[in-house]
Structures are given as structure tokens and as C-alpha cells.
């Protein structure tokens, strides 16, 4: 390794006066921060091991999984269309082409981000960064060279990685995390999904649609822990049909390589004796994610890492080291790309001296299963825990014209409302396309909208968005369509 000490810019005097920023990690948080910092006239260096920005979200997360879920939905609908008088033969799946398509989606988007970096004159370094001190990074480049650069401010956006539970440490190609599952090496005959959170359910849905017999094991009494039960119910019902089994209150005691598969032993009252041991072609472990806060040399800074591995930051996303900011998964839950991007933008603005703070009134969560589950703001579960007085208004999609035309009445839209001020505190939606619909709920909460504001806003007909308006009407007991499906 040759070590060169270079200044990041051999610059004109003008450049020399710009604030020099390094962003470590090129995910949706990191590149959003880098781009805004560049737009705010800073001299930005973005460091990531991949060829282009994108991070887990684009390379091994949101984007490839959504491409595959789109395919899964098509397969599902081609089967459902029997009910509508249209019948297709069973699909022929060309796995190599499917993979190529998925990869082309990733390439297109990450390449686009590479372009955007260049257009903004963001210096992109492919490599990994370690701290020499609070303002100096030693970057091992992918081409095996090393550079040492110093900066005025550093933003850590190192993200998270799939958590591994020791009991599942098994050196077997059949054992996958979400990254492995997205690689789609084959369509296994059977798949065990350990963990009934959103990653397990989304990827389980993909494999199930492709023809795999999927079993989901969740140690808690319900799928999607944290979400309101009434939102999970329609999904649970549909998944029960798609999956071979959903085992709740169940834990995996052991996993063993067993000739043609992995033998899993289950524990829990919900498992019948004969099902205690089963063999699967593949196992997907999706029991959560861990923050990537073990950054080499971090001890040379004043950055403080909390007991759960999250880097501690204030509302400006500044760490205990005043020169270092941190954003995204590495600073805390929820580990969501859109939260990270918003934090990235706040951090960049804070560094630019703007008086900003990360304090959203609502962060939406979306599970891209079929049906989708989405919520934002206060949940019923949380209100109950906090003993907050709320009123809940639900609109069943059976009463939505649009849902019926889609043959997807298995949905529900609900508002969680403050009974005194009638202000909307939370929105929850389950149903096809819930992820798109939730945005209106987020806006309503951020704008402190009242239920009457939503009820009196004209929504286009016939769309699923009307369910948001009608749930507000339900709050006042005046919904047009509750229990009366719409005609024309």
C-alpha cells in the first residue's frame, strides 16, 4: 500500500474557502446529505465501497426487493384473473432473465446517482474509511491504494447490516440473509423464513409467488410486531393462503445441515409435536438489523456509541464530537431510507449553519407485501400504551368502488384522531397500494390537519384515496359509503 497525503483539492482560492465535508456511506442518507451539502456550496467527498452511491437500499434492499415484489404481484394476479374470466397457463420462469432485469434496475438507478454526483462535483471515492482523528480519514480504496484526507466536518452514514443470531451461525450456502435471498440463486422447493417482520414477509412473498413452499416462524404472537393488529389481520389472512405455514409464538431451537437441506427444530406451544422438526431447502434469517457503528478509529474521536450500538446524536444529528455528524440506520430506529434521507438533509443544513432540527411529526412505515401495510404518526397500540385518549375512525375497503373494481376489498383505512381538537394524530392503511396512499396521511399530520380538513377536501373518484376522505367522514358519522358499496 502506498500512502499519499494529499489535500482534497488543488484548488483555486475560492475552493479553498469552501467547507470540506466527508460523507461516509453512500446510501439514501449519505447521498442525500452529500448532494445537499454540494448544493449548499460545500466541497464534498462521498466514500462508499460500491462503484456508485446507492447503499443497501439500492443494491441489496428496497429497490431489488420491490422489483421482485412487482413480479410476484403479477404472478398472483395472473392466477386471480381466473375469477374475472381470464385464464393464463402457469408462468414459465426464466430465473436468469429475472435476475438480469432486477440487476438492470439496480444498475440504472445507481448509475444515475453516480451521474448526479459528478454533476454536483461531489468527489466519489470507492473505498472504506477509518478515522485517524476527528477530522482526518484514512481511506482504503478498492484499488488497494490508501489516501489520508482531512475535512472540516464528517457525516457518518454507515447504515446497518442483517443481524445474525449465534444459534443460526451455520456455514451453509442454504442459509441466507436478505442479501442472499435477493440474489435469487434458485427457486427452492421449501424455504424457512425466521422472523415475521417486514423483510421476512416481503421476501417470503416473492419466493412463495415463484412457487416455493414458505414457512414463517415468529417468536412473538403476531406478524409485523409494532403495527396495529387490525392492519395486520388482512395481510395475515392472505399470507396464510400463500404460505405453507405461519408459526407464531415459536422459536427456532437449532438449525443443522442435513444432507439435502437444513433441519430446523422449533420450540413453542403453537407447534404440534409432528412439526417440531422439519427440513428446508433454504433458510432465510431476517431477525432484524444491526447498526454499523464499529467504524475503525472511531475511538480517536469523541463520538459516543449507545448500548444498542447506535451512535448518539442531537437533533442536528451532531454526535458528541462537534466535527462529526451521523445519520440514518446507524443513529437509530426506524431504520428506513426515507428517514435517513431526511436526516441527511438536516445534517447538511445544520453544518451550513442553518437553524434546523430533525423533528418530524410523522415518519411513514410501509410493508410492501400484498396487501401492503402502511402507517404513520400515532398508532392505536402506542396510544393505548401511553393511555392517550383517541377516537379511531375506520373505513373498510369493501365500501370503496375502486377497491371493488380491483377485486381487492381486503383493505381498511383508519384515522386516529384527537377527540377534543379533532386533529389527525395517526393514519393506518392496509390494502393494495397502501404505501402510496399513506403520503396523504403524513402530510395531514405534518400540517396538523383536522379530520374535517380531510373530509372536506375533494378526492378524485374512483380512487383508493377516497378511503382517506371517507374515513374522516366516518369520524363524523356521515360517511357516504360505509356498508354500501358504490355503484358507478
Amino acid at each position, binding site marked *: 500500500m502506498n500512502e499519499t497525503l494529499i489535500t482534497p483539492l488543488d484548488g483555486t482560492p475560492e475552493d479553498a*474557502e469552501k467547507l470540506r465535508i466527508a460523507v461516509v456511506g453512500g446510501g439514501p442518507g449519505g447521498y442525500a446529505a452529500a448532494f445537499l451539502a454540494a448544493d449548499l456550496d460545500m466541497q464534498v467527498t462521498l466514500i462508499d465501497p460500491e462503484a456508485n452511491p446507492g447503499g443497501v437500499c439500492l443494491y441489496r434492499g428496497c429497490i431489488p426487493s420491490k422489483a421482485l415484489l412487482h413480479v410476484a404481484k403479477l404472478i398472483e394476479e395472473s392466477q386471480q384473473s381466473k375469477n374475472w374470466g381470464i385464464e393464463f397457463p402457469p408462468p414459465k420462469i426464466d430465473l436468469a432473465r429475472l435476475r438480469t432485469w432486477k440487476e438492470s434496475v439496480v444498475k440504472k438507478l445507481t448509475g444515475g446517482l453516480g451521474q448526479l454526483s459528478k454533476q454536483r462535483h461531489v468527489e466519489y471515492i470507492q473505498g472504506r474509511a477509518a478515522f485517524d482523528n476527528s477530522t482526518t480519514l484514512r481511506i482504503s480504496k478498492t484499488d488497494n491504494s490508501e489516501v489520508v484526507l482531512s475535512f472540516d466536518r464528517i457525516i457518518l452514514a454507515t447504515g446497518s447490516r442483517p443481524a445474525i443470531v449465534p444459534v443460526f451461525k451455520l456455514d451453509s450456502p442454504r442459509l441466507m440473509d436478505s442479501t442472499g435471498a435477493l440474489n435469487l440463486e434458485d427457486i427452492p422447493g421449501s424455504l424457512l423464513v425466521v422472523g415475521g417482520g417486514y423483510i421476512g414477509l416481503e421476501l417470503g412473498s416473492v419466493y412463495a409467488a415463484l412457487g416455493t413452499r414458505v414457512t414463517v416462524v415468529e417468536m412473538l404472537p403476531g406478524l409485523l410486531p409494532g403495527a396495529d393488529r387490525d392492519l395486520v389481520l388482512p395481510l395475515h389472512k392472505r399470507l396464510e393462503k400463500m404460505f405453507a405455514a405461519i408459526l407464531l409464538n415459536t422459536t427456532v431451537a437449532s438449525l443443522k445441515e442435513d444432507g439435502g437441506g437444513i433441519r430446523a427444530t422449533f420450540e413453542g406451544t403453537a407447534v404440534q409435536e409432528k412439526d417440531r422438526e422439519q427440513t428446508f431447502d433454504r433458510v432465510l434469517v431476517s431477525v432484524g438489523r444491526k447498526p454499523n457503528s464499529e467504524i475503525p478509529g472511531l475511538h480517536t474521536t469523541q463520538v459516543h456509541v449507545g448500548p444498542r450500538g447506535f451512535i448518539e446524536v442531537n437533533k442536528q444529528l451532531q454526535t458528541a464530537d462537534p466535527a462529526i455528524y451521523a445519520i440514518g440506520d446507524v443513529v437509530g430506529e426506524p431504520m428506513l431510507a426515507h428517514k435517513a434521507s431526511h436526516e441527511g438533509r438536516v445534517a447538511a443544513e445544520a453544518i451550513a449553519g442553518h*437553524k434546523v432540527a430533525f423533528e418530524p411529526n410523522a415518519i411513514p412505515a410501509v410493508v410492501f407485501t400484498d396487501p401492503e401495510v402502511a402507517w404513520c404518526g400515532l398508532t392505536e397500540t402506542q396510544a393505548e400504551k401511553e393511555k392517550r385518549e383517541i377516537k379511531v375512525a375506520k373505513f373498510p375497503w369493501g365500501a370503496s368502488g375502486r377497491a371493488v373494481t380491483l377485486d381487492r376489498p381486503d383493505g381498511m383505512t383508519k384515522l386516529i384522531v384527537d377527540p377534543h381538537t379533532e386533529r389527525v394524530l395517526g393514519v393506518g392503511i392496509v390494502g393494495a397500494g397502501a404505501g402510496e396512499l399513506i403520503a396523504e396521511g403524513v402530510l395531514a399530520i405534518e400540517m396538523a390537519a383536522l379530520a374535517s380538513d380531510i373530509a372536506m377536501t375533494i378526492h378524485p373518484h374512483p380512487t383508493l384515496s377516497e378511503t382517506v376522505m371517507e374515513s374522516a367522514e366516518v369520524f363524523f358519522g356521515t360517511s357516504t359509503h360505509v356498508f354500501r358499496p358504490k355503484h358507478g
Partner: protein
Amino acid sequence: MELETDKAVVEVPSSVSGTIKEILVKEGDKIKVGQVIFTADNNGAAAVAEPARKAEPSSKGATATPVQSPSGERAAAATKLQPSSPVAPTSQSAPQPTRATGPVAASEFRLQELGENISEGELVRLMIAPGVKVSEGQPVMELETEKAVVEVPSSVSGVVNEVKVKEGEKIKVGQVIFTLQGSASSPTEAVRPARGPVEHVSGQHGARLAFQAAIRAEGKTEEQALPPDQPRPHPAAFSMPAQLGKVAGTEHREAVPAAPHTRRLAREIGVDVYEVKGTGPGGRISEDDVKAHAKALVTAVAAAAQAPPRAGHFIEPKLPDFAKWGKIERVSMRGVRRKTAEHLAESWNTIPHVTQQDRADITELEQLRARFAPKAEQAGGKMTVTAIALKVCAAALKVFPQFNATIDMEEEEIIYKQYIHIGVAADTDRGLLVPVIRDVDKKNIVELAVELSQLSQKARDKKITLAEMEGGTFTITNLGGIGGTGFTPIVNHPEVAILGLSRSRTEPEWIAGKFEPRLILPLSLSYDHRLIDGADAARFLRWVAEAFEQPFLLSVQG
């Protein structure tokens, strides 16, 4: 009319009624408090409207505008007309922070804050002229302030268009020094943040603290000069807001019923949006609610400002006409002399002084001093009694922390400083200056001797910077070079004690049954009796005297 001050856009209500006859200002003009805005036809009599006093305190908490020059004159609050209709009091247009204000034709450089209590200076040397290129950090002029001659660096880059000041002129903080030509679009300070590690307390809380501080701090310029987002420097290096629960930013303050834009406005003008009463449906807070809240606060400040001066402040009786009794000469009391007069009067009026006297036998110390003097000389310093006293006092302050403290009567708190920075009074041809030596406890006597020599020289050469005279926690004043057997020094407020040294003399001391010639150093310790009891002061001074008497102890304890 809407005025954009350093803090916010403020609507200015008319103080007169009648028909507007002539408007004397344009949009984009800077308007000073007291400037005539328009004349009105009021039943035939022409009335003149001045911007309300309200605009004035609003500039108080702002970044670099000094609020009150020490003599009590108010610095004019420079404000700018917002590009909106000049007369109709409309508030529809969104107020923008200064930096975002439309295209600025030529950017300008204003005199930024110079340091503790310094609000103006005399322009000694101008280093720029129209057409000259300046870049950020380049010195553009020399100012003589009350404490020192300072070089003022530019905070902007570009080509100088017009120089708005002349040599010999008095320049106030915030005054425009020069304007830039054309495209260099960074207006003054706002765009480029400071490079040094900036401490951020959570934005809202910080803004609030600063705003409250500004409200309270009649006469406390350093607090007022703090930008709202950077509250007073805290001894603890970092203040983490309550642990970040599960989601950053969603810890237990319920979602406030205000749109993101409104919340940002509040943060920018230093209003805690949680304290604003929303007038909208369901308690929703509008932009107007935030502004109204800010105005109410500002009015409260204005009212407070008009309240009579603090009790305990002495108003000097009128002077007789001395010319009646003979020839006199009046000379303006400027610079260091005036500052000294003000500061010492303030110290004297604030602090109930007591002076404790003691004597230290430094016969042995003197031998040591003579022996080590060449060593200090080699290093470029002078091994003086003052240099040794620095070391002695640093050790004493560690043992008696209440001597290294400050009283905050307003908060009813005692501030203990965890650092020991000692000021040493220096007699210069411009008057009394007090350079401060940092972290005295961490330096050895030779290092202290060197630093003291350098700083004193700098003070005499007028090269000392303001920063080098700030932040002291204790002061030493040595008049021994001139003479005297004792005196009562005045505590350098906000410190709480000062040690005076007089001339050492050989005196007969009764030792073991006979008189012996010993070298005796008289010590005078003045202290703030509010914080320090007489017995403690006696103990402190005895400790100091013993440390002088047995220098060996110092090397063991200090």
C-alpha cells in the same frame, strides 16, 4: 411596513395616524431606529413617524449587533425593508432569513463582533481601496479599540466596490465597512459557517435559551451577542439532549400542531413553537401566531428596557464648574482609560470588597529565584516574583476553588471554573491592561516566565489581542517594582479575588530568640465578600504565603 431585522421580519405599526403625505424610504433601504419613515398629514399638522422602538431589542439577540455601547448609547438597529408593499401592513409574504433574501446586487462587509464588551474602535489604518481584490480572512484594516489594536479580517471575498469608512473614524460593530462588486454573492456572514468546532445544543432549546438570555441581559453584551443557536459556551463539552428514545426527534414532546414551514420559522427567529398559542382550528399554529408571539416577547423586552436602572448602580452627582477657581483643561477620556474607569466602577459597585493583608518570608525563595533566573533567561523569559506568584496562586486556587469562581446572582448560582487562567495587570503607556495566561496550573515556572514576558511585551507594543485579555479567573497585580507596603486592589469582576504584591524589603524578623534579616514580601488579597468569608480569605492568603516561604512545598503540591 415590514422590516427585516437580523432576527426576523417585523411588522412596524404606525405610531401616528393621518394621511400619508410623503414616503421617505424605499424597499431595500436600511432603516435605522429613529429614521423618518413617512410624513403624515394629520389635521393639517405634519407628523413624523419613527419605527417603533420594538425593532430595536429584536436585534439584540442577533449575531453581531452590539446592543449597547458601554456609554449607554444604543447602537442603531439596522433593518432592511422587506420587498413587499411598503405601507400596507401585510404579512402574507414568507419571511426569509437574511441569507435567502433575493438577489443582492453587491454584497458588503460589516464590522463583526470584536470581543467581550467591545462595540467600537477607531480606524487606525485602512488596507483596502475600491477595485482591490479581497479574499476571506485577509486583513482589511486596523482598529484601535479600548483594549488593543486589532487587525480585522474580511469575511467576504470579491472586488471592493466602495469603502464606506475613513481613517480616524470611529466604527461600530455592525457598521458597513465596504461593499463588493457584482457576483460575489455571499452576503456577510450568514452563508459560511464558522470552521471551528461549533457547539450545538438542540436547536429549539438553544434558540430559546439565547432568546431568554437576550431578554434578561440588559447590559450584558456578551450574552446578547451570542447567536440564538449557540447558547453560552458550556463547561461540559457537549450537551446531549435527553436520550434519543427510539426515533431520533420523536422523544416525548408531543407533535406540535404546526406545519413544518411554521416550525422552521419559529426555530429561525428563536421562538419555542411549543410556547406559541395556536389560534387556528384545533389549536393549529400559524405563521402569524409565531410572529405575534415573537412580537409579544419583543415588546416585553422593550418594556423591561425602559425600566429604571438596576438598584445599586450609582449615579454620579453633577460636577461643579471648576473654571470658577482657575484654569482647567478638558481632555477626552478615551480608549483604555475610559474602559478602565467603567470597568472598575462596575467592579466596585457590584462587589463588597474586603482586603486581607499578610507577609511572606521569601528569603529562601529569592536564593532559588536567583539560581534559576539564567535558565528562564535562556528560554526567553524573566524569572520574576510575578512568575512565581502565578504558580503559587494556581496551586492555591486548586485548593480553594471558591476563589476561582463567579457569582451569578440572577440564577442564584455559583459558577466554579474547572480551568485556571490568571490575569496579570500590566502597566503600559496607554494605561492598565490585563493579559491572561491560560491553564497556569499546567505550566511550569519557566514556561510561565516566558509567556508572561511575551504577553507583557505584546501589551506594551499594542500588539495584544482581545482574546489574550479575556477569560481570566483570578488576577495578580504587582506594584513591587515601584514601591509600597500594601494596598487594596479592586477585584476584576466577574472574578472574585485579586492578589496584590508590594515591594519586598529586608526586615528584622524575630526568629529563635533573636532578630534576623529576612526578605519580606507584603501580600494584599482583595476578595468578594459575597462568596468568600473572611476566615477563608485568611486561610487562602496564609497558604499562599507559606508556599512562598517553602518553595519546596510547591514543587510537591503544585
